[in-house]
């Protein structure tokens, strides 16, 4: 039988997935992969790419739609079923047993036996060696997984999938944990696999990697597919436009900022993550009263770590941070809030809300101990109700009543609840981390307007956003993070264009230390 190069090995048609919390992570997505190609699946966090791949690997079941593998309609009820159809997945966080050896991990669940009951370790090692050689994936079969470097762990994961007969490999952000050298090595191995007629689905949002290694790409945004493209015939600009969605025309009216005293002072922050990757490398900047300082950058360049340090979610290796002269690094969240710092967290479902509590309960979580909400030991329910009704009204939260559960709201309204709480505590500093990601246009516009209003009223705002449009339109001045360092500082954002920004964000250009140093407004 003749095999065509563009045989479709995987086809997903009209996939819709509604999670038990009511979030429609995929809405009528079509996705297909040809035999023997490296196919990128791109999109921002929350665009629905992981959900789509989980369904292909049998971890989740689609609410609607069909999956066709090699021309045959299948129902993938579990990873076992997916593996039986030749699909393997390498998760971003490795699924390995650290106390076992590489060979033991590889044969786990399909252990070669001796005389029917004893584990044949020798055979396991031989098997590992054989596959490692065949696919050019060098691993040490007798090393303990706990002792091997991250790059090798990933190879073990890939081998695990291959040895189970996977012909289609899903790699979930495989380079997120790798160093540059390890990434280059991984890419050589992937090309080698491709030459042997294996199909690879590569989840990523790093433009340069995609350009370097993939044949075609599918872009997702907001749970929908934005189309399939030949990698060679699409520019990075087009990709980024499709990914982050620049079709929302912003009309944020803002007058000139008049920054005064420094509120947040950050000096020489350093942080190395658990995979020994330096995520922050000497970051220093100031945010002044009355200005919005934006932090732009491709995701994973230290933004998350920076916010985590400032809100006591992680401890830096070195460096200082202070608000109006009081140290932030060693303060608890309660104390940080006491200093007048508010945070709109990136992960709103984890930090921003208690999902099965009511809207009212979510609105008072930072102020319920204040005198005005308590009558001796009892809550002053009247005051609490007045407060929550006022916030619901001021922030136009669409809901039936204040006692509706927060998880029943749409994403935009959930974010409005978070923002209502964080913006209304009369903060000296607001840290807004991806404040409008994944929410509807109306709510986005509303939140952006509120941010500008607050800054003009004298609040210092630190805006972290992967949405270029947002960070450029809203910020008064702006820094670009690349590889854990500040790559550029723009004092005035009105003269910026995306292309120049892109060059700094993708690490093609870097300003001089002197130019960058201007972000520290020392007297």
């Amino acid at each position, binding site marked *: 039988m003749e095999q065509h190069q563009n045989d479709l090995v995987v086809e997903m048609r009209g996939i819709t997935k*509604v999670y038990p919390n009511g979030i429609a992570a995929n809405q009528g997505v079509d996705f297909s992969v040809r035999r023997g190609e490296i196919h990128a699946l791109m999109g921002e966090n929350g665009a629905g790419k992981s959900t789509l791949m989980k369904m292909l690997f049998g971890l989740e079941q689609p609410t609607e739609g069909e999956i066709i593998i090699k021309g045959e309609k299948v129902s993938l009820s579990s990873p076992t079923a997916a593996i039986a159809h030749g699909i393997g997945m390498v998760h971003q966080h490795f699924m390995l047993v650290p106390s076992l050896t590489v060979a033991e991990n590889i044969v786990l669940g399909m252990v070669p036996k001796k005389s029917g009951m004893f584990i044949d370790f020798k055979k396991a090692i031989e098997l590992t060696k054989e596959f490692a050689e065949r696919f050019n994936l060098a691993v040490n079969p007798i090393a303990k997984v706990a002792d091997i470097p991250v790059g090798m762990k990933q190879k073990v994961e890939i081998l695990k999938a291959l040895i189970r007969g996977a012909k289609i490999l899903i790699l979930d952000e495989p380079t997120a944990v790798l160093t540059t050298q390890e990434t280059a090595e991984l890419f050589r191995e992937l090309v080698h696999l491709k030459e042997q007629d294996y199909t690879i689905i590569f989840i990523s949002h790093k433009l340069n990697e995609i350009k370097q290694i993939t044949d075609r790409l599918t872009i997702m945004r907001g749970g929908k597919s934005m189309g399939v493209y030949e990698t060679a015939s699409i520019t990075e600009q087009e990709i980024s436009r499709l990914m982050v969605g620049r079709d929302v025309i912003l009309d944020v009216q803002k007058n000139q900022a008049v920054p005064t005293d420094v509120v947040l002072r950050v000096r020489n922050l350093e942080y190395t993550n658990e995979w020994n990757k330096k995520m922050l490398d000497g970051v220093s900047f100031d945010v002044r009263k009355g200005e919005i300082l934006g932090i732009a950058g491709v995701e994973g360049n230290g933004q998350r770590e920076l916010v985590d340090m400032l809100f006591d979610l992680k401890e830096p290796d070195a460096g200082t941070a202070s608000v109006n002269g009081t140290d932030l690094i060693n303060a608890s969240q309660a104390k940080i*809030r006491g200093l007048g710092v508010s945070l709109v967290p990136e992960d709103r479902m984890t930090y921003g809300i208690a999902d099965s*509590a009511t809207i009212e*309960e979510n609105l008072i979580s930072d102020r319920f101990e204040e005198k005005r909400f308590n009558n001796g030991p009892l809550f002053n329910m009247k005051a609490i109700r007045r407060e929550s009704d006022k916030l619901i009204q001021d922030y136009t939260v669409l809901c039936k009543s204040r006692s509706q559960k927060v998880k029943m709201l*749409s994403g935009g309204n959930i974010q409005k609840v978070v923002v209502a709480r964080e913006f209304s505590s009369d903060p000296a500093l607001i840290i807004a981390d991806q404040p409008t990601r994944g929410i509807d*246009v109306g709510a986005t516009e509303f939140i952006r307007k509120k941010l500008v209003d607050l800054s003009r009223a004298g609040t210092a705002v630190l805006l972290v956003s992967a949405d270029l449009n947002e960070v450029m339109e809203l910020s008064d001045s702006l820094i670009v993070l690349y590889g854990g360092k500040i790559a550029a500082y723009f004092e005035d954002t009105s003269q910026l264009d995306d292309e120049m920004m892109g060059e700094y964000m993708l690490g093609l250009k870097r300003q001089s230390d002197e130019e960058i140093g201007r972000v520290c407004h020392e007297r």
Partner: protein
Amino acid sequence: MKDRRMFGFELVRGAAAILLALGVGTIFIFLSSDEPLTALRYLLIGPLISIKGSVASFNTQGLYTILAAMIPTIFTGLAVCVMFSSNQFNLAGEGIVMAGGFVAALAGIYIHMNTGWHAVICVLIAAVLGGIIMLVPALLKVKLGASEMVTSLMLNYVCMYVVLHFLNYNFADRSKGSTQTYPFDPTAQIGSMVPGGSKLTWGFVIALVFVVIIALLMYRTRWGYAIRMIGINQAFSKYSGMKVGGTIVLSQVIGGVLSGIGGGIEVLGRYTTFLWKELPGYGWTGVTIAILAKNNPLLVPLAAFFIAYLDKGCQLMATYCDVPSEMIDIIQAAIFLFFAAEQFLSGYRQKIVVKNTRADLAKAAQAAEGGAE
């Protein structure tokens, strides 16, 4: 509309779980009994309605017995509600009931007072001891990260054997054939509410008062609020600036106090001496009750009534028919299973969710279209 539909779903799910559990029980009754219908009659209506010949009459004493049985389990049920609300799976209520009952009895024997305050003091001592014992798993959890489930479970046996040690070697009344303490003073006893030697004591009223107190605590105070928020999402609570560690300890201490009170009241109300030689089981029942009540204090009396009713029915069945009294355990376990199983009827729930989300998406699309024009 949407919320009401989800609430309706929870009700349907609860009712279905109970019915299914009773169904499972019925199967076992039919398997083990020669007269299954009579047995079933005793189980379902026997506790409140006695049938002599063809005359059915309401059994007032039966009602008193059931209400009396609810006294300790309301307290342990409330205790578990508070602890589970902060997501602490603390099971030490069982041992604390026994320890609390023991110190209350000792206070009744060795402290002499004239007025009705005697019983109050005895119960207070039990309450304080309960709170102190609960500090052990709570502090181990907060300071060292030890699983409260494991430590509290083990603690039950520590409580039991410490009590048995002191009962056997220090406080036993040697003039009696079985191991028990001396009788406590009449001033320490909690009197019966109704005539006829029933065990339905004023402790029942106290239990109901505590239901209201704990409901207020959980839904109308800053401490209860923090306990519930931490239970729903600890990361959120910490980020909001709450004192997570202290609140986790507090919820377990409250649980210990309630269990201690339950043990004290039960011993002083039902007996004249302390004679438990093994864990009384009220703590475990409290877990079932809290699960049935979905951690809502106001539903605890209902759940406690249900369990006491079933308990009584099973006893009748075991006494008058050929069904073993262990049947209650089977039915309880089945309820437990259906209630605790998050996935039970989840397919039906998912259908509701999908429907709601569809409606929302359609509405949003409509709104967007309207806005674009």
